[in-house]
């Protein structure tokens, strides 16, 4: 098994952190992983993305030509990467279905917004929510691994947000479970 995931959004949305979290969760499950950021001129407010690979075996190329999974934290990222996703792949879109134009019928879409969950989740958790939704939807990893990884990776100055982030992971996973409306991704 080898899966390639692109996480994309605005700089400041926690795109790179979500990728790290995913990679770390893979390590917890004794899998191989690579993480590459789009680096350099990217900045807060600009576009940011990272490429994560997760595999049981040694990972050759860390570069993703066509991702199995796209996590689009905003609509511009969705528009930019939608065409690249592999046939039968999955896109987690952080928007409601009527906000975007779907241009393909050979991939799966899953729409999630913070409004879907609860009013208590802060806007800054969209990365965690989307990541959790992807993990739950694909069963690529266990939700528990994601929570363990978060415990390990959360910076000291953000410790007070740990509980609410874990809550976001759980709520998002529950939302996916309750909304099996789109095709199940294999």
């Amino acid at each position, binding site marked *: 098994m080898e899966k390639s995931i692109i996480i994309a959004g605005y700089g400041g949305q926690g795109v790179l952190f979500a990728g790290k979290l995913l990679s770390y969760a893979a390590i917890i499950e004794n899998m*191989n992983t690579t993480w590459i950021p789009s680096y350099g001129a990217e900045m807060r407010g600009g576009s940011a993305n990272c490429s994560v690979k997760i595999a049981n075996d040694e*990972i050759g190329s860390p*570069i993703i030509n066509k991702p199995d999974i796209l996590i689009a934290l905003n609509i511009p990222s969705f528009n930019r990467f939608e065409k690249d996703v592999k046939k039968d792949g999955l896109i987690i879109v952080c928007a409601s279905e009527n906000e975007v134009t779907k241009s393909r019928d050979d991939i799966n879409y899953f729409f999630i917004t913070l409004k879907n969950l609860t009013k208590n989740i802060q806007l800054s958790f969209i990365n965690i929510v989307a990541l959790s939704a992807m993990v739950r939807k694909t069963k690529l990893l266990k939700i528990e691994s994601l929570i363990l990884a978060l415990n390990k990776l959360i910076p000291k100055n953000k410790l007070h947000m740990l509980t609410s982030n874990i809550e976001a992971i759980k709520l998002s996973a529950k939302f996916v479970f309750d909304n099996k409306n789109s095709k199940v991704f294999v």
Partner: protein
Amino acid sequence: MEDEEKILLKGNIAIAKAAINAGCECYFGYPITPQSEIGEYLSKAMIEEGRIFIPCESELAAINMVIGAGSTGTKAMTSSSSCGIALMQEAISAMYCQQVPGVIVSVMRGGPGLGNIAPSQGDYNQACYGGGNGDYKVIVLSPSTIQESIDLTYLSFHLAFKYRCPVILLADGILGQMMEPCSINKNPYNDYDYNIEKWALNGAKNREPRNLVSLHMDLGELEKLNYDLNKKFLEIEKNEIRYEIFLTDDANIIITAFGTVARVAKTAVKQAREMGIKVGLFRPITLSPFPSNKLGNLICSNVKIVLDVEMNLGQMLKDVRSSVFGKCAVKFMGKPGGGIINSDEILEKIIDINNNIES
């Protein structure tokens, strides 16, 4: 090593951590993307360890400080990227001539000129064949995973002190910026005795004064030194060659690639094998000295074509050609200026070549 906990580290940080483990006492550097995390990490860690960290006014200053520290037998390192390494060339030639050990980490970005900050392999020639003057050679090591970046950082310090010469650890922007699970294992050369008392400038108390210079004006002195240093490099060539081969035994096509491109090529090789194409991979780890004989010996009657793949316009190609020595055709594919090659492109090329062989 298996017992040690795997952690997720960025390539640059891994190199910095390994340098500390290798006993690097001094770091001198000037920031440049895509390797700035090395200096950033060491600016804190070296001070905490009670070691020396100096943010320099230029790359030129940094490499000359490495010479200063190295000449006292102290493990010292600098790191930079393409155009920064360009500024260090004169001093690297001097290090070779003065026989001063030191480690230079070069994380390549797009060139020429100031170029861009995208990953590249455009400095193969700069590292292996240098811009310094005279008949000098440098040991150049090329990792392709983060774990190997750690292991080769240890090896860089080891070889620099074992042979008293500059060693370049040549990575590219992807290896610098990528994160991968790895473990910071123990430096395997911790107990090695480098005999620095025999040559280091550590104060002339109770011994004759000595110096380490690169100016040799006496008649025939420099000629003899050149022969001696060359002999040393032949010794390095005999003892220190490292390379990786993958599925080359029955191969009709052999791909040659180093660094990140080698692992991208490995994916393409695996995919091509699934399609029944007999293709293998040869990855030099020591780019200088180049494993010429090892590659040459792989070229038997099976092998129809060698395909050299690089993120440049074919800098390793001439080493590959001279190793193959006309025994089969050598083709090239590459992208300059920060262009990244993906495995689909390599696979396509392999299929194309294979169709031509069969027809």
